């Protein structure tokens, strides 16, 4: 009897412990960056001399235009799910700090929107961070975070970094970068030139190609734009992953018809500016050398591009 009671007690304790563990785990996930709401709840409203003022702003893919005007299109083009905005102010003439946390829905798109503007000095916050005078940005997991100061002061800069690290610590887990990055040739790659995107409007922003979507880019395609420098010779390279080989082939045909009609799929073509352009299909991947200083560089890049999983 006493043995039976001990077993029951042990089992009960075990169940309670397991339940508490699951509950704790659920709470932890929810409390640490599971959503913009939980980030808003968890984030300190006081950071040194700066205190949050007013109500937090929340925006979706439609209302984001009300908040950041035309630039909202960039975030929409990366599938923005929501944006949380909070302003911190301090006394003594110090500038306000505007914190914007964008939920991009996936870590790949958080990385993507981070690559839209790669000016600045690298900083150690989140998974990648950049600091320009008065603006700190970073990405972690599916969040892209921007901290903007109306003007830079030493105290404001310190507070912005402190706030950024607080946000980053609340987003507990790191996210993965787009798998298509594995397909880029590595030799001579200018890391800071890499842009990950889906939308033809963003491709045109970084490299104007055409006034129509001649590569059939869209939400279901992943694209990388990158610059190479090998032995003083430069190249601009594009790698696109389509949902299936048929769509990749169709896009290649459309691109050739509109952009390189003379090429006929027979190797690099010399453009009017003396640069070389070429394409290569590998399953559902289309590699395009948009312009290279030499024919051999174009051929090498196409040869080295990988059809990653």
């Amino acid at each position, binding site marked *: 009897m006493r043995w039976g009671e001990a077993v029951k007690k042990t089992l009960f304790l075990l169940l309670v412990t397991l339940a508490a563990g699951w509950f704790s785990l659920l709470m932890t996930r929810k409390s640490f960056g599971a959503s913009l709401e939980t980030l808003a709840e968890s984030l300190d409203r006081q950071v040194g001399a700066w205190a949050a003022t007013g109500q937090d702003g929340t925006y979706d893919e439609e209302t984001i235009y009300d908040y950041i005007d035309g630039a909202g299109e960039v*975030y929409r083009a990366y599938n923005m799910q929501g944006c949380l905005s909070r302003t911190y102010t301090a006394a003594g003439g110090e500038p306000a700090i505007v914190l914007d946390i964008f939920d991009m829905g996936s870590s790949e798109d958080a990385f993507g929107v981070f690559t839209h503007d790669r000016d600045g000095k690298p900083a150690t916050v989140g998974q990648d961070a950049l600091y320009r005078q008065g603006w700190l940005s970073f990405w972690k997991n599916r969040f892209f975070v921007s901290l903007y100061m109306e003007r830079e002061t030493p105290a404001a800069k310190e507070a912005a970094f402190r706030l950024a690290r607080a946000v980053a610590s609340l987003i507990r887990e790191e996210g993965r970068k787009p798998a298509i990055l594995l397909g880029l040739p590595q030799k001579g790659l200018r890391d800071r030139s890499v842009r990950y995107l889906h939308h033809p409007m963003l491709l045109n922003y970084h490299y104007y190609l055409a006034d129509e979507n001649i590569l059939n880019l869209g939400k279901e395609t992943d694209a990388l734009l990158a610059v190479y420098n090998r032995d003083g010779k430069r190249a601009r390279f594009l790698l696109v992953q389509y949902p299936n080989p048929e769509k990749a082939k169709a896009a290649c045909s459309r691109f050739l018809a509109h952009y390189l009609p003379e090429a006929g799929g027979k190797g690099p073509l010399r*453009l009017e500016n003396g640069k070389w352009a070429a394409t290569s299909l590998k399953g559902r991947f289309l590699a395009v050398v948009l312009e290279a200083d030499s024919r051999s560089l174009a051929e090498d890049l196409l040869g080295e591009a990988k059809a990653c999983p």
Partner: protein
Amino acid sequence: MSVKNIITRRDFLRAGACITLGSFMGLPQGEGSPANREGKSRVVLVRDKDVLDSKEQINRIALEEMLDGAVTALLDVPDPSSAWRRLVTPSDIVGIKTNVWPYLPTPPPLNEAIRKRLVEAGVGEENISADDRGVLRDPVFQRSTALINVRPMRTHHWSGLGTLLKNYIMFVPHPSRYHDNACERLGAIWQLPHVKGKTRLNILVMLTPLFHGMGPHHFSRQHTWPYCGLIVSQDPVAADATGARIIQARRDAFFGGERQVTPSPRHIVAADTRFGLGNSRPERIDLIRLGWQEDQYL
């Protein structure tokens, strides 16, 4: 598959220069602007260092005097009243196209000064409206016979520069459709029936222009400066081209070397070469300088 009517980078390369693409594409030269396409376009740059105080608050009287001086010189008449009577008639219905971007809006004192001068020229109060994002729904704009275009100059994420030409993007229901290729087709908006030929005056506000943008908000106070100027012209292209030169010069000075506006504001040159809205080349601009001369960046 049709291969016609798609403009690609190759077209630019074939033409030899991006900025002249429109004229090589067989596109029609536009009409509908009072800009002088045959000769030079007159542009007035007026500056007063006292128009802003130490906190960059506007001195209304100084601002009104700048506006008066500019329109008088622009139209080569003896006084501001004469100038405004040349610009509008009492029967006109006038829309003042402003810009409400929160970080750098069209200054309310300037809107009020324009409205005051319009009323003095005989335009009925009920026939004047100042609006930006609601122009397509505004009853005065819907009936308008004349437009006054007024906005601050700034860098812009999609168009390179937020210009007078760009300010009319709210006259279309889907502005984002004009964002491709750095908004190069903005000039087309000026050819739309509800816009074409209505613009009587363009005022590019250069009081505290933004010469560099960053981040989601594209604004930082440290990238503005008290230029204390207005650029006034009947030719929006000439006014924008003049403002663009100032912005570029300020950037170069601030960053210590050439630092091009990104993306290149090609819509200004396209408005000249492709849409025929005015003159973008300095040699086609008759620039009149009034007031404060220091650090003009021109």
